[in-house]
């Protein structure tokens, strides 16, 4: 029964995708959207059942193969599922947000010509994500991994006539591919070590492997390298420095997509993967330190960029990267459940923020520039409310979901009690301050003050189809933090994590409120209020050193330029190789050159033939003499 449910989820999603993709024009857009949403909703219900099952039956793991992908001697790869609490939870989140976005999109995309194509894509995306989440082996994970990347590629380029959109999607795909290249090597390294792609077998084989006696490459442990490579894949997917550059650009896609893919689900695949492979990762000590640093740097430095950006979606995108940095840094201290908790809360409030932004953008007729907004609070009250909820969550206002998850990360970071983790803790604290500043800046500039874009009278709330998802998500954002104990006690797969001191909800709240994070919250509020609500200058900020720093930040640390240079270099190399080496040297000089030489020789021969009878006769006699001479020399 349960197996059937599990199988039917991906099947329903593929069905939805195929129906939307190949249906004739008789199916109207609205109907198509409704059908698609219903199918996703059914899947969501199924996933709830599965979720319920896994959380009620302790230590029960659903595991089976649908079919054998490859089964030859020495290599067995199945396509199947492994449902434990982690994946069950993830499935629910994915399907829920997907459903919400489906509904939202019916309203948001209603005027698009390619409405059905859009729905086909998001169904396909949901399918790939489910494949990734429920997978029981690394290959299936990789298939889903690339699948979500593909759909992300297609969706960023959804408005294919826009030059910026098709540039962004290419960039997104290619940078993900860089990650994937390392990822696949990582997968293979794990396979070679553990002799299986299958999680179950892998982890049971792990116990047989003598970790300390493994091969070393350049002074690094085998398992470190493998995990490092896997993590590079995660870095690309979860937009960590320096492979984060694609995510802000990906905002060229339709806004619901930004909510679904580039905030709530796909970008967290990296986190999910590391959590999934946590039994391996705990052996990779060097790599986890690396993960920690990368996460912290991302959390702080990318967050800072958000303060200076004026595109409403990009600000949220940078904030996403920054929040992902928090999750990653939690992974760096093997606090997988904590990271996962933040993933879960973040999914709701970030999706909420994006959808609200979408609502604003739609109301303003596709204006995304926040300098042209302001004072929308009156005209868009529901959106404002929801946006406010989202903002409170992200800045970790007490009792909102963000408060719980972010505080937990900070706590475990402090609790880890090493030099590195303390340093990271400081960075994350500053990050929290930055988060407060940019989040409040956004809401202040957009919803408060006065409207800077023209006639405010024309602006009004969108339809209920748009607003109801906001409300659902807002509710979830507010309450989802209270299930903290579930997460803290969540065993990640068949392996325990480091114990976390958690003494109940109330002590946690009180401890959280009194922590340094609250100071950053208050400080951040005042800075933002001063700067953006009251529009006052802070003299400190007009200091020329700070200007210089802000210039660096505004340039986004030149990462884009770096990748641009890389691609230019590649093009130049390719051009050189194609024209100079391949055509000039191999083709012209050797392949055609040799025949040309022969032809030249031939023409020369032809030109020296005189056609005179006496030359012919002479040649005959000469040859005769030579032949005689040679043979005489041999016989005498």
């Amino acid at each position, binding site marked *: 029964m349960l197996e059937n449910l599990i199988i039917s989820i991906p099947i329903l999603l593929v069905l939805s995708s195929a129906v939307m993709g190949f249906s004739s024009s008789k199916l109207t857009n609205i109907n198509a959207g409704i059908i698609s949403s219903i199918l996703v909703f059914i899947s969501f219900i199924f996933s709830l059942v599965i979720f319920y099952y896994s959380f009620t039956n302790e230590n029960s793991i659903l595991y089976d193969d649908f079919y054998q992908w490859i089964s030859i001697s020495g290599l067995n790869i199945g396509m199947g599922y492994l449902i434990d609490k982690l994946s069950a939870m993830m499935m629910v989140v994915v399907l829920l947000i997907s459903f919400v976005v489906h509904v939202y999109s019916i309203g948001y995309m209603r005027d698009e010509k390619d409405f059905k194509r859009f729905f086909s894509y998001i169904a396909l995306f949901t399918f790939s994500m489910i494949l990734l989440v429920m997978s029981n082996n690394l290959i299936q994970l990789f298939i889903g991994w690339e699948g979500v990347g593909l759909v992300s590629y297609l969706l960023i380029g959804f408005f294919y006539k826009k030059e910026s959109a098709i540039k962004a999607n290419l960039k997104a795909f290619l940078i993900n591919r860089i990650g994937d290249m390392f990822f696949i090597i990582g997968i293979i390294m794990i396979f070679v070590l553990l002799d299986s792609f299958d999680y179950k077998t892998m982890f049971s084989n792990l116990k047989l492997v003598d970790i300390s006696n493994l091969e070393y490459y350049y002074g690094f442990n085998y398992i470190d390298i493998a995990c490092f490579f896997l993590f590079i894949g995660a870095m690309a997917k979860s937009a960590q420095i320096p492979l984060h550059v694609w995510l802000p650009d990906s905002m060229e896609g339709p806004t619901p997509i930004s909510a679904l893919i580039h905030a709530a689900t796909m970008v967290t695949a990296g986190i999910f993967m590391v959590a999934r492979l946590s039994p391996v990762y705990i052996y990779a000590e060097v790599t986890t330190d690396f993960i920690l640093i990368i996460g912290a740097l991302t959390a702080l430095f990318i967050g800072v960029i958000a303060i200076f950006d004026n595109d409403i979606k990009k600000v949220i995108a940078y904030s996403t990267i920054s929040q992902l940095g928090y999750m990653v840094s939690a992974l760096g201290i093997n606090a997988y459940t904590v990271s996962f908790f933040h993933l879960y809360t973040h999914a709701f409030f970030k999706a909420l923020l994006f959808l609200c932004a979408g609502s604003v953008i739609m109301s303003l007729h596709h204006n995304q520039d926040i300098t042209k907004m302001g004072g929308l609070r009156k005209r868009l009250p529901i959106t404002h409310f929801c946006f406010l909820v989202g903002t409170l969550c992200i800045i970790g206002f007490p009792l909102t979901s963000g408060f719980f998850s972010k505080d937990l990360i900070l706590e475990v970071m402090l609790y880890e009690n090493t030099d590195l983790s303390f340093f990271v803790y400081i960075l994350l604290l500053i990050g929290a301050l930055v988060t407060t500043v940019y989040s409040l800046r956004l809401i202040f500039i957009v919803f408060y003050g006065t409207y800077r874009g023209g006639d405010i009278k024309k602006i009004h709330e969108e339809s209920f189809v748009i607003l109801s998802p906001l409300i659902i998500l807002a509710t979830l954002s507010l309450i989802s933090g209270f299930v903290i104990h579930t997460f803290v006690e969540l065993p990640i797969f068949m392996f325990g994590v480091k114990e976390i001191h958690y003494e109940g909800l109330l002590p946690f709240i009180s401890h959280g409120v009194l922590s340094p994070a609250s100071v950053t919250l208050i400080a951040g509020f005042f800075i933002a209020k001063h700067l953006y609500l009251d529009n006052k200058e802070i003299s400190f900020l007009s200091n020329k050193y700070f200007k210089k720093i802000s210039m660096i930040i505004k340039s986004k640390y030149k990462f884009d330029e770096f990748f641009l240079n890389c691609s230019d270099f590649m093009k130049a190399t390719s051009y050189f190789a194609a024209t100079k080496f391949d055509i000039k040297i191999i083709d012209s000089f050797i392949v055609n050159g040799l025949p040309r030489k022969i032809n030249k020789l031939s023409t020369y021969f032809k*030109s020296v*033939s*005189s*056609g*005179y*009878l*006496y030359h012919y*006769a*002479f040649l005959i*006699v000469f040859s005769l003499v030579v032949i005689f001479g040679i043979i005489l020399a041999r016989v005498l």
Partner: protein
Amino acid sequence: MITMTHYLVFSALLFCISVAGIFINRKNILLLLMSIELMLLSVNTNFIIFSNYSNDITGQVFVFFILAVAAAESAIGLAIIVSLFRARNSLEINLINKLKG
């Protein structure tokens, strides 16, 4: 004492000279024909030498045939030369190189 080798060497020398005649000569084709006659003459001499040496008359029979054929050859050669001369009004070998390469 004149041995057969003397004769053979003479005949070989005659052959070489006539062969040289063919390619040293660049003036007219008639001389070519004459050189050819000379060449066949040396061949004939060879046959006669061997015929005499082995006391076998067959060699001389061969010479007889060669003589006949050589006469026929001269006839045809002269005919070709006459026809060439009619067409070109010249017998210079230097000018016969339309066909080349």
